[in-house]
């Protein structure tokens, strides 16, 4: 479950997709919550027995990442559920970060394995899991635990979760470079039935990171002569704080229309001690066509302010380890918009132990605009006067599911 698309490898091929400057939480950021929120309609139950085969592909800014994800879940005696997931990212990157560093396109592979178990006891579900993510210069282990309980005639469900991550950061081409990160995530969620047609979910999550939070391949830039931009700029390895703490709270509603359709909306507020504040809003409509077809159209808007220590162009080099410097576009002031279209077909088959099959085609078009991250391929302009960078990305997912 990773967290960030680790990408990069070798000093000769820095920052690909991202190794997102912010080593986002690995696995646990998503795994526990998604796995342990109970069925919304009330009454805690074990997850469905199903097998999923997903092909995913991301294509944007000369970066292509694709691969399979296979998930199998099996329940035992109506009280125990176990699952296993195998996920692969095949990365090919010539992103702006790569080409502006003078590196050439590179390829690499990341593999991830997850196992989890759930135990149903009365109106409670206890869950635990483990994920390992491995690639050439980064390895992450994540452990999580979650407990979920129904209240109030099964109209209310509360979930508490904790996840712990231990990462090892390496640098291709530099065998002496080995750093560590410790991550902790604490979360609570409430699902509430508000009416026979309306559901609400409220989630809060606090995450702390401690360790080497830099991307060892990324650099910031500063003017060679602060009084004369025409003298050009120089680059140096970024200087990051060694801790980060963030808080996020999200609220969702889902409403069943008078016909067989559903309207959903959500909002999330995020803030951290690096100075980033972000807002995410989303709206989606789901419509059915006959008993087998489901179509969904969604729109998502996201915006964030920059980190305190981000700058597209610094005046001077960092003076010491506490004089933080970053030029990761993920820390800049930016916004994104996503339009998503999903089509799903499901049919009961009742063949042996197989109950139902489904196939889903999902397409997301993402537009990212950066307000203070320059495109350094614009070499004609003076430092600080280059045109701003923007990019689009296509995300395709093809999902086959078998329920049994």
């Amino acid at each position, binding site marked *: 479950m990773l967290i960030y698309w680790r990408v990069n490898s070798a000093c000769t091929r820095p920052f690909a997709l991202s190794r997102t400057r912010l080593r*986002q939480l690995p696995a646990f950021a998503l795994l526990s919550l998604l796995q342990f929120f109970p069925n919304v309609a009330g009454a805690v139950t074990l997850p469905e027995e199903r097998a999923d085969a997903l092909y995913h592909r991301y294509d944007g800014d000369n970066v292509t990442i694709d691969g399979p994800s296979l998930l199998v879940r099996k329940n035992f005696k109506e009280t125990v559920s176990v699952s296993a*997931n195998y996920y692969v990212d095949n990365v090919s990157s010539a992103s702006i970060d790569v080409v502006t560093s003078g590196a050439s396109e590179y390829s690499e592979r990341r593999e991830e394995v997850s196992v989890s178990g759930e135990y149903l006891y009365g109106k409670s579900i206890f869950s635990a899991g483990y994920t390992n993510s491995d690639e050439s210069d980064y390895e992450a282990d994540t452990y999580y635990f979650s407990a979920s309980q129904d209240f109030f005639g099964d109209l209310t469900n509360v979930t508490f979760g904790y996840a712990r991550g231990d990462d090892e950061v390496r640098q291709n081409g530099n065998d002496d470079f080995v750093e560590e990160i410790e991550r902790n995530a604490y979360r609570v969620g409430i699902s509430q039935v508000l009416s026979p047609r309306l559901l609400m979910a409220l989630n809060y999550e606090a995450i702390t990171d401690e360790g080497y939070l830099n991307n060892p391949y990324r650099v910031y830039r500063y003017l060679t002569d602060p009084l004369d931009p025409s003298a050009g700029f120089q680059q140096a390895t970024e200087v990051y704080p060694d801790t980060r703490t*963030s808080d996020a709270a999200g609220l969702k509603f889902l409403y069943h229309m008078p016909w067989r359709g559903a309207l959903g909306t959500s909002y999330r507020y995020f803030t951290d001690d690096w100075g980033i504040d972000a807002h995410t809003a989303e709206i989606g409509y789901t419509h059915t066509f006959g008993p087998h077809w489901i179509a969904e159209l969604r729109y998502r808007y996201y915006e964030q302010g920059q980190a305190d220590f981000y700058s597209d162009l610094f005046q001077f080099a960092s003076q010491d380890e506490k004089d933080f410097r970053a030029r990761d576009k993920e820390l800049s002031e930016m916004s994104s918009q996503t339009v998503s279209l999903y089509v799903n077909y499901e049919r009961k088959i009742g063949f042996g132990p197989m109950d139902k099959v489904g196939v889903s085609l999902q397409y997301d078009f993402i537009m990212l605009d950066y307000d203070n991250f320059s495109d350094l391929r614009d070499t004609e302009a003076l430092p600080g006067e280059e045109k701003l960078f923007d990019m689009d990305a296509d995300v395709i997912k093809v999902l086959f599911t078998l329920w049994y």
Partner: protein
Amino acid sequence: MKSLLTRIAVAATTLGLGACSGTGMSSLQPEPWVKPYERHLLADPIMRFDRDPIASSYLHHVYESREGARGALGSGGGGCGCN
């Protein structure tokens, strides 16, 4: 709208009242307003916040790789959300 806000407020205090149920204050708890036989629409698969966790988790991963924010992505619905 007033009714909706009232229900949200009641839901928000449900847990607190629940904690008092063992101390003689159980009579203060509101009655569940949606009966089991009224939940057939909520049981519709389209009423899951996350119908395909494996796919939505992947998209969340994309966002976390491209944006600074993270967390609080929990969603209702059973099933595993890996990646």
